[in-house]
């Protein structure tokens, strides 16, 4: 089995899974079969059927509609959170790696201290202090994830700094910012891209965890984590309440994961 074929298979599987999630997201934006908070006393805890594809919950809400509508928050939080983390991490990591010395020490000790708070804890505290809202969740998760990117950038930069082409451009007096832009960033793409994709996956896990605890996306908006926590008391009698939201989360994370494998294998294959 050669690398190119494995790599292509990852791409196909990843795209299929992400395609499903994306379809949910797009459909959910414009149309849902029922209102997401429409209760129906006559249709409580219905098993999946033609009227309700994914069944209904204890209040008679249509699970399919809620799943369609919840996709937007999962995507929004993961992408926005990673964007925040990436910006913070890139600046901090490049500065630490490029300037070294005392700058590096300060940045590293700060990022190490942030990493000492178990990720979910820091996000929970931020939400506890500033109140549960979508934006607080996003910047809190962004802050939690920033050190991960900073580390990748720092170690990558330190390694690149010993390369002769960096020495060469220092001899040519290329200013630091341009040096980072033309020499360091492009060469760290192969390392950053998988980190970004894994970041998206982890962000989703965290977001769903927080929503499950009731501290993430707030009702009346639907979110997978909250759906799962609402369904907890009925899980043995109505497993569809658990299975479908979980499945979409799994599709999203797994899809991202396959894409990151695809990036990894195809980049490696390309450079040789």
């Amino acid at each position, binding site marked *: 089995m050669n690398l190119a074929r*494995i790599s292509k298979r990852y791409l196909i599987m990843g795209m299929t899974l992400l395609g499903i999630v994306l379809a949910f997201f797009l459909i959910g934006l414009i149309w849902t079969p029922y209102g997401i908070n429409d209760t129906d006393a006559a249709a409580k805890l219905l098993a999946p059927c033609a009227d309700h594809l994914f069944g209904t919950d204890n209040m008679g809400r249509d699970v399919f509609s809620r799943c369609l509508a919840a996709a937007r928050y999962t995507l929004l939080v993961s992408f926005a959170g990673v964007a925040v983390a990436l910006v913070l991490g890139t600046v901090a990591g490049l500065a630490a790696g490029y300037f070294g010395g005392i700058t590096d020490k300060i940045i590293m000790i700060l990022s190490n201290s942030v990493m000492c708070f178990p990720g979910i804890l820091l996000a929970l505290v931020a939400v506890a202090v500033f109140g549960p809202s979508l934006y607080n969740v996003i910047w809190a998760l962004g802050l939690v994830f920033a050190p991960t990117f900073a580390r990748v950038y720092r170690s990558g930069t330190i390694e690149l700094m010993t390369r002769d082409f960096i020495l060469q451009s220092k001899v040519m007096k290329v200013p630091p910012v341009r040096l980072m832009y033309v020499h360091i960033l492009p060469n760290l793409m192969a390392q950053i891209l998988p980190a970004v994709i894994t970041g998206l996956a982890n962000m989703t896990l965290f977001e769903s965890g927080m929503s499950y605890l009731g501290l993430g996306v707030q009702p009346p908006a639907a979110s997978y984590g909250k759906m799962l926590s609402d369904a907890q008391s009925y899980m043995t009698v109505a497993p569809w309440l658990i299975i479908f939201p979980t499945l979409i989360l799994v599709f999203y994370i797994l899809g991202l994961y396959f894409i990151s494998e695809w990036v990894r294998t195809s980049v490696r294959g390309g450079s040789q």
Partner: protein
Amino acid sequence: MGNRVKFAAGKLCEFLLTALLVSFFTFAAFSIIPGDAARVMLGTTATEEQVEHLRTELGLNEPLAQRYVSWLTSAMRGDFGKSLAFSEPVSELISSRLPVTLGMSLIALIIVIVVSFPFAAVCSRRPGKFTDRALSAAGHILFAIPPFALSMMLIILFTRVFGIVAVGQYARPSDDFGKFLSCLILPAFCIALPKIAMTFKFLRASMIEYSASDFARTSKSHGLTDFMILIKHIIPNSAVSSITVISLVLSDIMGGSLIVEQVFNLPGLGRLLLAAISRRDFPLLSGIVFYLALMTVVLYFMSDMIAALIDPRIRDRRTS
């Protein structure tokens, strides 16, 4: 020898500095609350007098630096003040909930290590072959399921398919230790599974890398079998490089246990934390946060020391 003492001293300084920073962050997080902390805690219905009373009680009228110093000195004695919601000392509340969180985390860590090492070793022997691909795929899928969702799936599986009640009645460790352990195992397993995937993936990659290393080739040229090279060289070396990852995993596990204990109705730190958040009990909240963060700092310090113990290069490297 001089280097080693220097190394340990350097690491210790780093540890103390990080611990101090962590304490400052914890303190600061609860001091920069927008608006009046006392007002936030009591909610909008409280009278002006009540707020003022709480402000005095919490020492909010003192200058910030003084509050930090007094908070830190009492925290070092293990005194985090009194919980507002439970009217009990924070430290007692924490220590009564600690066994669940700690026990669950430790069991999960053991599961992670015991499972991922052998699997990674098997897969690294013949990368790209059927076993490797099957196990790697299983790893991907496990990684993708949120632990609390996995817990629910497993509970459904156990009750619906096997007819076993998976959520056992919780017993305190002092009452019935066996029962205490038995109700921790399934949750620990649920936290561990995604982390097994993560550790496995890292170990597999590092073992494959070491299999192709120059020293593995040297041993091969000495006439050692692949299995002996694996045992003697590859596993110890990957163990060293995985120490950092494993300590990260343990910190993730502790975070994960906060959520999973909700699913299994276990009285651990997670429930206490949620109660503190929902009742805006900031003394309790800062106590829990500081406690957990401090445990992580100690954990990282220990993992650094273990790495230095095994790897002579780390001991000899001047702390830079």
